[in-house]
């Protein structure tokens, strides 16, 4: 009985839901003890090369409140806006985040208002992580469209996509910045993305932007730097 309760708490902390309430999120399995692995990141290096020589930039981090990221970005003299993308998804689209809910234009509008409510061209850089994978295509396009509006010209965005092309579950990651070239990636469980991306589909998604640069790695993650 106690083990069952502990499992549920672990799952809840890892971002999962009670299986009885949420058929969609019940697919997400949580690791009992998330393992954090540092990995070098060429895309991160390029991201920080874009922002390191300036001060007072507006940077949005969608990993939520994370001490490492807050310390790192504010330590560079920038202003940080912290938002938890999974929390925003759950708040607006419901705990099950069902495809039907994510296709509802009104809810998509509410989501943009809730999580990307910035002045046009007021954001200098965005750490989007793997957020887009957990959205339905309609919501993805709306989010990318709003990002294009709020990001200043030549602004930079860092995103991550899984490289598997099969429709299987993929690890759910939690990213932390260790230094300008190293990420800490913790696997908090597995889940099935709403959409699998190819390089072509990513390019098409960001087709209004200046450039989309891919960085392949050994751990089935594609890092992408998008320049507005």
């Amino acid at each position, binding site marked *: 009985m106690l083990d069952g309760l502990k499992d549920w708490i672990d799952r809840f902390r890892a971002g999962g839901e009670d299986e009885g309430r949420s058929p969609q999120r019940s697919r997400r399995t949580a690791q009992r003890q998330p393992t954090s692995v540092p990995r070098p990141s060429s895309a991160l290096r390029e991201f920080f090369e874009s922002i390191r020589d300036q001060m007072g930039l507006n940077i949005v981090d969608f990993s939520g*409140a*994370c*001490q490492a990221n*807050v310390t790192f970005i*504010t330590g560079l003299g920038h*202003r*940080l806006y*912290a938002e*938890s993308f999974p929390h925003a998804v759950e708040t607006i689209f419901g705990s099950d985040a069902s495809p039907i809910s994510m296709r509802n234009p009104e809810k998509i509008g509410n989501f943009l208002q809730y999580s990307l409510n910035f002045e046009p061209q007021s954001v200098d850089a965005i750490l989007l992580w793997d957020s887009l994978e957990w959205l339905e295509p309609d919501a993805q396009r709306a989010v990318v469209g709003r990002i294009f509006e709020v990001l200043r010209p030549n602004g930079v965005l860092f995103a991550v996509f899984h490289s598997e092309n099969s429709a299987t579950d993929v690890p759910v990651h939690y990213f932390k910045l260790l230094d300008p070239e190293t990420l800490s990636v913790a696997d908090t469980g597995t889940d099935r993305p709403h959409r699998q991306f190819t390089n072509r589909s990513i390019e098409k998604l960001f087709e209004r932007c200046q450039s989309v640069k891919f960085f392949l790695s050994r751990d089935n993650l594609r890092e992408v730097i998008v320049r507005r």
Partner: protein
Amino acid sequence: MSMWSSRQRGRDEEPAPPYTPPAAEPMRERLVVATPAPTPNTVYASNGPAMVGKAVVVKGEIHSREDLYIDGEIQGTVELMESKLTIGPNGRIQAAVRAREVVVFGNVQGNVEALEKMEIRKDARLVGDIRTARIVIEDGAYFKGNIDILKPEPKPAPKPATPSPAASASSSPEGSQNSPAKSASVGEQGNARVAEPVRGGKS
């Protein structure tokens, strides 16, 4: 009516016994009854921070010069520019907060300015913008908003060296009182008692 009449009858039938004053109790026993032993809570209340309990709702402004612990509900503004504000796990704040130091265990909706340090503890929830010199966010806390790190104010430039006794002796008393350096230093100190003789010297 019937009770009244029965009492009347009782008094008529059985006269009340004569009053006998109670025997005087020893002084020590009276003291024990009148002043209960202090509990840990009373010690905390007298020495610890001021406290807003979890059943308390305040709508308006709170200004405090001592540390404050809020476990209740506040709507309005909270200002403790010289002190530490702790928002307990049951605390629900919908307010603009300004304090020297802020520690959040509960729920805050509003902008927070912590001059020295801000802590958002595990399971806390804060929606609003933060301006602070240092910030600590524990894993498990929820935060949505801007973080502005306040730069430490530059130290004031060293004051000009005080004139040597020889230099002051060589100049006239009026001249030394009216010199810009002297009046500036008085102004920086903001001490009215020092400034008054200067004005008196001029007249």
